[in-house]
């Protein structure tokens, strides 16, 4: 689910997919990354964009690069240079 960043761009993530692949509950992932279950739920639903620190913790937990879990989309705002 995409979440809006502060400059209005979209931050998508695949946490739910990776959780399913690793057979993890939100509670398990929350415990492993040192946050509450509600925070994992909010990230998955795109309500909250995690800090870089938390994003790295989550991606490292799944042993993948950060960009495989989180995608920064610039589809919302494009600046015409010409």
């Amino acid at each position: 689910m995409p979440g809006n960043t502060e400059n209005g761009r979209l931050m998508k993530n695949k946490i739910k997919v990776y959780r399913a692949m690793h057979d993890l509950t939100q509670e398990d992932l929350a415990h492993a990354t040192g946050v509450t279950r509600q925070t994992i739920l909010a990230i998955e639903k795109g309500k909250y964009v995690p800090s870089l620190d938390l994003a790295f913790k989550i991606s490292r937990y799944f042993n993948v690069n950060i960009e495989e879990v989180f995608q920064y989309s610039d589809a919302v705002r494009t600046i015409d240079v010409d």
Partner: protein
Amino acid sequence: MKKNTFYLFTGCIALVLLALFWYSVELHTPLLIEIGFIVAIIAIYLARKRVTDIIEDERTARITEEAAVRTFQVFWVGFCALSIGVVMEILYIPSFPRDHPAIHPPQMLPPRMLGYLQLGLLCLMIFLYVGFRIYYARKYGEWETDEE
């Protein structure tokens, strides 16, 4: 200490404070509730440090931070407006009208009135903070539900 134990402890402290407030009003000893309040805050702070469950993370910290900043941004306007009014009251110099030469002493705000004013400001601050907290908690998915 577990999360629920901490919340129970905080609730008990709130009840004790309420009783202490009432007792303090009855005896008209403001020092009692003032000291009680400080002790209660210290007790809650110490208990919070002993909680082993995760009750605060970066999202809750952000909710708190944004609610506090917005509260300050709105509150200072009201606070300054009222303070200017009080300053005007202090700086008031009585005029001496020629028609009525009787001199009236300058009217100062009585302490009780200042107390009500301060109570109003405190209520405004709490009301703003709770309102903004609810807003940001909703924004950052505090009450989101999942199928899990």
